[in-house]
């Protein structure tokens, strides 16, 4: 079943979003240093299974495997000319997984940063960035996403470029944006949660919030600050499953499902309406989040 994010937000107190995609793909055998988006055409079943597992765990929103799908990011892998193809495929895979779900599922087209610094600090002109985001957004919408999901941003100018690009390519499609607060409570570029919340409210997004970063505690603080600054905002929380540690060449994130359940309850209390996870999380973490939120919302 598919669904509209606006309708779900109207009808339910909190929504469950999925967890990390990249770390799941690497766990499934994606080679270090290769583009995750390539699996949308080379190993679509592996990507689809991750979506299906998150849905089975209770995710009502799934993010496409297109985080690094902008031309700028793909060009680092020599795949710039395949941007449209890889994003379209990402959307089609997620769409197909959502269609088979027993509950309504929103397909969100993930759009991550270009990986370049925008002018005036770097060399990428905002309008050129907007063009790359437009190309990515057009392909995601063509492949069937319900909403465009700008995430892991640090620079508000890049968020603006992404919003501009999405609106150019797909004027009617709803947008959300989340930033990463990993530098002393701010984004890398110094953006505070309060200022970001105010700016993002002004951009007319369906929802906004925080994702990734240094584990649940710091993300919960950012959500709390956003909620106090903009109490009416529909906030999104997607925290990493703690912090990564290396154990015998293997990466282990230190927050288990029970920690993420407690995080979900706190995120709800702090004002988040959409709660999921990011790097290092698995369907088990999302299951724990979904169960915690169902109890809180008194939904059987």
């Amino acid at each position: 079943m598919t669904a509209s994010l606006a309708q779900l937000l109207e009808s339910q107190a909190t929504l469950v979003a999925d967890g990390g995609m990249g770390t799941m793909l690497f766990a499934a055998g994606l080679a270090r240093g290769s583009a995750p988006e390539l699996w949308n055409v080379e190993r679509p079943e592996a990507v689809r299974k991750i979506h299906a597992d998150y849905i089975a765990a209770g995710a009502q929103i799934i993010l496409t495997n297109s985080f690094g799908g902008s031309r700028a990011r793909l060009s680092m892998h020599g795949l710039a000319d395949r941007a449209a193809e890889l994003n379209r495929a990402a959307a089609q895979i997620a769409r197909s997984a959502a269609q088979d779900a027993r509950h309504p599922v929103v397909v969100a087209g993930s759009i991550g940063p270009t990986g370049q610094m925008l002018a005036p600090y770097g060399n990428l002109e905002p309008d050129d960035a907007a063009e790359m985001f437009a190309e990515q957004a057009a392909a995601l919408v063509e492949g069937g996403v319900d909403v465009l999901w700008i995430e892991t941003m640090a620079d508000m100018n890049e968020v603006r470029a992404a919003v501009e690009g999405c609106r150019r390519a797909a004027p009617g499609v709803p947008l959300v944006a989340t930033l990463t607060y990993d530098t002393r409570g701010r984004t890398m570029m110094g953006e505070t949660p309060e200022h970001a919340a105010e700016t993002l409210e002004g951009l007319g997004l369906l929802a906004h919030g925080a994702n990734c970063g240094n584990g649940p505690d710091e993300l919960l603080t950012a959500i709390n600050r956003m909620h106090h600054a903009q109490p009416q905002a529909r906030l999104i929380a997607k925290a990493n499953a703690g912090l990564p540690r290396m154990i015998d060449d293997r990466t282990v994130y230190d927050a288990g499902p029970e920690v993420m359940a407690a995080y979900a309850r706190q995120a709800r209390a702090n004002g988040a309406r959409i709660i999921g996870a990011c790097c290092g999380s698995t369907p088990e973490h999302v299951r724990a989040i979904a169960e915690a939120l169902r109890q809180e919302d008194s939904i059987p």
Partner: protein
Amino acid sequence: MSLIEEIREGIIQGQANIVVDKVRQALEAGESAEVILNQGLISGMQRVGEMFEEGTVFVPEMLIAARAMDKALTLLRPHLVEAGVQPIAKVAIGTVKGDLHDIGKKLVAMMLEGSGFEIMDLGINVPPEKFVDAVRQGAQVVALSALLTTTMPNMKDVVDALDQAGLRGQTRVIIGGAPVNQNYADQIGADGFAPDASSAVRKVRELIGV
């Protein structure tokens, strides 16, 4: 304020045009290039680094200061060469193999250059052999960056490659990046870890004893 103080202040404020102007004036007034560099430019960048660590400025301010520094250095460099002023040390920096992240590495490179080091920026997705070559070409410090938990093990490959090439003893290896910490540095046999660009400068200075 003296010209040198104005240069220092211009760097802190990130005013490239003012800094270049004042450097030119100072040179015309017969000030030594070394004093302009150390007491004006580098001292200003050091203050910016401190302010970054104090949390009063963020990456954008650091970038603007580094750009002002860069423009001033272009003007100053021939004079430094003429006066025989040597860089503190040569640092080879790069993001390790498999990792395509550029921004953090670039910031560290800028801060090191702004502190008087010579930088060999090897770029992103750098295989271990390239770091080994850089050490053969005189790099005393190797600075490794990784943003991904999936690529941080490749830092160890660089340490091992230096070891196998018999160059480990003459090189200091420093690591950084979101998933990296001191514990990991110890684990892979790196000499140091720094959590941000400003502390990276301090750490490199400490490692080579200047």
